[in-house]
């Protein structure tokens, strides 16, 4: 249990992806079954443990320590799980059954506890555990580890650990269950690859490369098909052998949030497409509309009525028993067109292809797409098979140019890891209020898009123009006459109630440093809000 607790603590404080991968890989290598598999399940959210309510936790602890002292402690720490893990009285050594409480022990005792003796089982586990282990146990029972590790990253670590492609792990994943002993045996070369036992498995998706400057000049337009790139969420709808699953592009099962769509999956196939909301063909909702449907545990009928989900189909990967992935794109496309025609048109429609003869012609279409929910074009080789991952050559994405605005640097925060001595995370704002007495309102935060040399320049600027410091954050001088103007590129804008400005940018990054531009010439908030109304 201590090793698992240490892993969680290190993961949450390690900012770099590579650092996290190393920590996970080493853990998988050093820790035996079944603990490592249970840890994996805890991280990917596949470990089922009955939840304990915060009020219960608070009751357990105040039975053991003075409520006033607990109150002071909780006020200071601010996190219930952490406070309880720290103030929980150390039990006498003889009451600890053994000091090597394993994760498997903890999981087993929590899973087998009845509803009524859940609290006492939890208390006795806390009595036996060290401080970090207590924290981990409380996190397990209160749900949500919040350690900044996605299921995708955990699968990547498994792939690195076993020296296999992550697509292989993703493909197997939904047929496996904790503690994944067969998976680890395979990754360690001790056993063959696990059989794909589950039905309606995820098929690792094919991704594209962005078009670079000279790519197209070397390519013959006749070899390629183009279609619009829709601004929704890439999904895979699999309905095979009576099992229906809607997967995200990283293989997470998102069926639960889209019962309306799953109901309509009365076919025997695997489809690749874009998840959108709206009523095709007349209405295709924006990404903001789609967001109303995301990350929900339950979906009210009202929500389903207002934001009905549908899939705009790109590809057909499997039909009945036949795996279509090795076929050329044009052949799959033909099969797709025939197939989608048979489905509920309110839930499945076809992503149209674009006629074009030259790259210039496609460029013109790309820059003025016929629909606001289009974020560019996809270019696919006619003869391309559907392969997992991001092969260079067969598929390209050619995105609409990003939006840009000029904003003023307001706050800078120190970075992490390599950048811990640099002010590298920037909050920027635009003007609001009457021009004479305008003030800056923050509209976003960006931490990349600049070169190492530019980072040094901005860092120096921040240090030389600091107005106030709040821990790792510095507020930088920013008024009409003096300030640093940043050209910000972003992919879109959503309404936001969480931000004072009322807007939230998607994928903002710094595209240019405008040392030449006086701050009063930076953009105004109205420019952004006008983009919302489009």
């Amino acid at each position: 249990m201590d090793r698992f607790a240490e892993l969680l603590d290190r993961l949450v404080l390690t900012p770099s992806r590579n650092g996290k991968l190393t920590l996970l890989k080493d853990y998988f290598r050093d820790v035996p079954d079944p603990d490592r598999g249970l840890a994996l399940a805890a991280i990917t959210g596949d470990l089922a443990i009955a939840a304990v309510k915060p009020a219960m936790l608070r009751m357990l602890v105040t039975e053991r320590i003075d409520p006033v002292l607990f109150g002071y402690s909780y006020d200071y720490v601010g996190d219930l799980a952490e406070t309880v893990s720290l103030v929980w009285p150390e039990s006498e050594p003889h009451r600890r059954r053994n000091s090597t409480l394993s994760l498997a022990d903890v999981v087993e005792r929590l899973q087998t506890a009845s509803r009524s003796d859940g609290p006492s089982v939890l208390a006795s586990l806390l009595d036996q555990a060290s401080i970090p282990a207590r924290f981990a146990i409380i996190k397990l029972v209160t749900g949500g580890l919040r350690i900044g590790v996605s299921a995708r990253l955990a699968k990547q670590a498994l792939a690195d650990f076993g020296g296999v492609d992550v697509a292989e792990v993703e493909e197997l994943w939904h047929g496996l269950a904790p503690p994944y002993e067969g998976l680890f045996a395979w990754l360690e070369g001790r056993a063959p690859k696990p059989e794909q036992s589950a039905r309606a498995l995820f098929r690792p998706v094919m991704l594209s490369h962005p078009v670079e400057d000279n790519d197209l000049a070397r390519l013959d337009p006749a070899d390629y098909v183009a279609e619009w790139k829709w601004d929704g969420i890439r999904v895979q709808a699999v309905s095979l052998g009576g099992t229906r699953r809607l997967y995200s592009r990283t293989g997470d099962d998102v069926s639960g949030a889209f019962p309306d769509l799953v109901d309509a999956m009365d076919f025997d196939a695997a489809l690749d497409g874009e998840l959108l909301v709206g009523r095709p063909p007349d209405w295709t909702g924006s990404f903001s509309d789609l967001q109303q449907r995301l990350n929900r545990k339950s979906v009210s009928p009202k929500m389903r009525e207002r934001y009905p989900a549908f899939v705009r189909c790109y590809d057909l990967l499997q039909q009945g028993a036949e795996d279509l992935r090795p076929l050329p794109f044009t052949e799959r496309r033909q099969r797709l067109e025939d197939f989608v025609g048979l489905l509920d048109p309110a839930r499945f429609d076809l992503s149209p292809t674009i006629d074009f003869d030259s790259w210039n012609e496609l460029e013109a279409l790309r820059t003025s797409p016929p629909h606001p929910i289009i974020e560019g074009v996809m270019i696919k080789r006619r003869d391309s098979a559907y392969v997992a991952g991001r092969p260079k050559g067969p598929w390209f994405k050619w995105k609409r140019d990003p939006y840009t605005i000029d904003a003023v640097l307001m706050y800078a925060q120190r970075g992490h890891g390599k950048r811990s001595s640099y002010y590298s995370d920037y909050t920027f704002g635009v003007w609001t209020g009457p021009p004479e007495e305008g003030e800056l309102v923050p509209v976003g935060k960006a931490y990349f898009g600049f070169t190492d040399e530019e980072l040094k320049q901005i860092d120096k600027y921040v240090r030389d123009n600091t107005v106030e410091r709040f821990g790792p954050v510095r507020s930088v001088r920013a008024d009409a006459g003096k300030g640093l103007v940043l050209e910000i590129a972003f992919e879109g804008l959503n309404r936001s109630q969480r931000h004072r400005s009322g807007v939230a940018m998607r994928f903002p990054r710094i595209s240019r440093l405008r040392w030449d531009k006086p701050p009063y010439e930076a953009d105004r908030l109205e420019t952004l809000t006008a983009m919302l109304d489009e």
Partner: protein
Amino acid sequence: MRARDLLRPRPEGLYCPPGDFFIDPIRPVARALITHGHSDHARSGHASVLATQETLDIMAIRYGDGFAGATQAMRLAETIELSGVKVTFHPAGHVLGSAQIAVEHEGTRIVASGDYKRRADPTCLPFVPIRCDVFITEATFGLPVFRHPPDGDEIGRLLRSVRQFPERAHLIGAYALGKAQRVMRLLRDFGYGEPIYIHGALARLSEYYESRGIALGPLLPGTVEQGAKGTFAGAVVVGPPSAFADRWARRFPDPVAGFASGWMRIRQRARQRGVELPLIISDHSDWDELTETIRDTGAGEVWVTHGREEALVRWCELNGIAARPLHLVGYEDEGD
């Protein structure tokens, strides 16, 4: 004699009217008794200073030879009289040379602990509990959430991380007096034999520790001249915490930011500072040590100084010990 007539807070610090001296005054005074060398307790500019030889040496290193008009070295456990008030210094276990000060007059004994800890520290003498009527305790970590783990766990975690990330430098923030030397010494005790790179701010104090018989092993300056970035891959670098936010830290390859401090017990503290490897190593008592010490002194009354007074006062109430906060100002948590 009533305790409050023997020692009482004044704006300059804790004052003894019959003996006419201050303990750890924050402003220049005629006669100062200093518990230890951290700059919030040991300030320059007093007319005369009474402290252990180590504390006087440390003050001279930090402030220069003329840091006080006159100095007098106190031997531990030796009693002197100042205007009829008996004064004895006893080891406090905080940093090299740190002492508690027992003040006794007309049958009343008060012990001012300064800063102290109870666990073993290879760089200083261990704390000795002194029976007294009133015990003046610090409360830097005076909340039940502060429970420092064994040093070995923390150093073990650091050494594991060094093996796990051999391509990165491990930067350990540690206060220049006490903590830095303790961390280096602990690394040696746990078998780390490689040279440790140190920030310039640590050099003279570390040399001084060495001269007092505390072996720190091979130390090298963490300067660029020591080599290109590659040299620091896999290295342990120790410096004052502020240095790692500074441009100084840029010479190290993809550093793992560590911080050795009791504050690292609280995850949010680590997160705020961008610490990737928190090491819970403290020169102050944790909650259990504070309450254990209060019991050990047998004091009927406890005065609580800098830190989180309210929780410790509450604990004393629950345990039938009279307690009150002293509200002394000017003490930071430099030692941690």
